[in-house]
């Protein structure tokens, strides 16, 4: 096509399409594509790469009308990518911004794209997995479960609504902020080490408190051991209750934590041990 010729000629000086025309709406498009499809073609080889490239299309299509250039741009992102689906979004926005810079004529080799991606996708994944997907999810879930146990429909519904709002909100905000900051993403206050440390500390304390509460309500273990002395029967459980209600679940959780965290026993092994422990104890009439 004649278009393509014109394009190639202009590439040296300025792009065919004015990159300024990338709108907030385009970025929202990117965000939503990513949100819905990030795991749709997930694979052990390059994980989220197809979803990543495809999510950028609303921007890429505007920047590169020429098929060859578009192909090159797409291919540039067909490399390993993996981050936490929600907290990772600022990175997608930042990459989109870099594409715009490149289309504007700035010299950005593929290496730089790869460097930015591999520099940030890991930390964001760690943050997202441990803080958001795990802690925040567990917190909200715990309220939901508590209400659900009292047969209250607000439990599941409330959990769903709040989680969806937070996720959607962050994904939309995060992609935009990433697009604004571009390559300087990690210098922003919201991603500063101090903010992250503080947030981590506060969420840890909050999380631990709630996990403590959840453990007390969801873990069940009582003993049926009884003995007699001078014709007076003593139930071990009554003694333990005198020490503290839910004494055994307390010990159990701490013991599992100790084995898992300090002795590096895998979840699989602990699962097995627990089943054996429960079965044997139950058959021996200890529980």
């Amino acid at each position, binding site marked *: 096509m004649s278009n393509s010729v014109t394009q190639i000629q202009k590439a040296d000086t300025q792009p065919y399409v004015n990159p300024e025309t990338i709108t907030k709406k385009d970025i929202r498009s990117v965000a939503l594509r990513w949100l819905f499809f990030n795991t749709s073609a997930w694979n052990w080889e390059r994980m989220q790469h197809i979803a990543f490239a495809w999510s950028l299309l609303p921007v890429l299509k505007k920047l590169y009308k020429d098929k060859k250039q578009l192909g090159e741009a797409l291919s540039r992102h067909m490399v390993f990518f993996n981050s936490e689906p929600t907290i990772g979004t600022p990175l997608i926005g930042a990459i989109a911004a870099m594409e715009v810079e490149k289309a504007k004529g700035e010299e950005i080799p593929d290496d730089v794209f790869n460097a930015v991606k591999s520099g940030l996708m890991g930390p964001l994944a760690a943050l997202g997995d441990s803080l958001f997907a795990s802690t925040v999810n567990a917190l909200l879930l715990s309220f939901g*479960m508590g209400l659900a146990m009292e047969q209250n429909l607000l439990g599941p519904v409330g959990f769903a609504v709040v989680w969806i709002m937070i996720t959607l909100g962050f994904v939309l905000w995060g992609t935009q902020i990433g697009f604004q900051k571009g390559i300087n993403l990690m210098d922003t206050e919201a991603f500063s080490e101090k903010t992250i440390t503080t947030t981590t500390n506060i969420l840890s304390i909050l999380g631990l408190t709630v996990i*403590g509460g959840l453990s007390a309500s969801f873990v069940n273990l009582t003993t049926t051991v009884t003995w007699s002395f001078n014709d007076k029967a003593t139930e071990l459980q009554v003694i333990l209750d005198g020490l503290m*209600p839910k004494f055994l679940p307390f010990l159990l959780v701490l013991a599992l934590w100790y084995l898992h965290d300090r002795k590096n026993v895998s979840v699989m092994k602990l699962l097995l041990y627990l089943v054996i422990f429960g079965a044997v104890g139950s058959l021996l009439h200890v529980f």
Partner: protein
Amino acid sequence: MLWESIFIAFFAYLGWIATPWLGGQAIAWYVFGRPLIAGTVVGFILGDVQTGMVIGATINALYIGAITPGGAMAADMNFAGYIATALAMMTKVSPEVAVSMAVPLGLIGTFTWQAFATINAFFAHLADRYAKEAQLGKFTFMLLGAPQILAFILRFVPAFLVLYLGAPIAEQVLKLIPDWFTHVLTVVGGLLPALGMAVLLKMLVRETSILAYFILGFLAVAALKLPIFAVALAGVALALISFSLGRKEGEAHV
């Protein structure tokens, strides 16, 4: 039970980690994949929301805070949630027994994810070519098309089969099960959530001394009978105090 099984299996598909239609991993999996929601949905379909919800919540304790870092899925909570709740309701067993049923299902379910992530690598190579040639239609098909057909097969089919064929069998089996075995299942079901908690603890305990907050939270529920939301509020208070005292002099106030 045909239609019920179909519906439930379909939701098991919709709430799977790789299914995009309900909001992708971040929503489908973290909301509709959670046993709490799964149980509620199953309850709806089987006409007894309350029971489904309670079973779902109980199973969920096992998987609270469970994540899949780098695709490593220790247990398939979606499978555990939908199938175990459904089987439990169909065979009318207690939530504790349902938890014991959920565990093997959660383990088995992870194979579908392994298969999916392995086979997709093949589509990825096709996608490479379509990307280079900017064949957008075909390229898109490698994301929305082929893998989704695969996902549907990998998730809907086994879920449906287990439910439709398994339920009657399970019912028979459970009838034959002696009391002592039910007791074992109940005891084990009561223990298992401790593992979920321990996994979360590992993630949160950076230094041993902050186990203190775990202790306080535990006492708040066990000894003071506070509702969990009140415990969380107290946790917010403790976090703020720790923040305010930990802050070094001269730092900005919040």
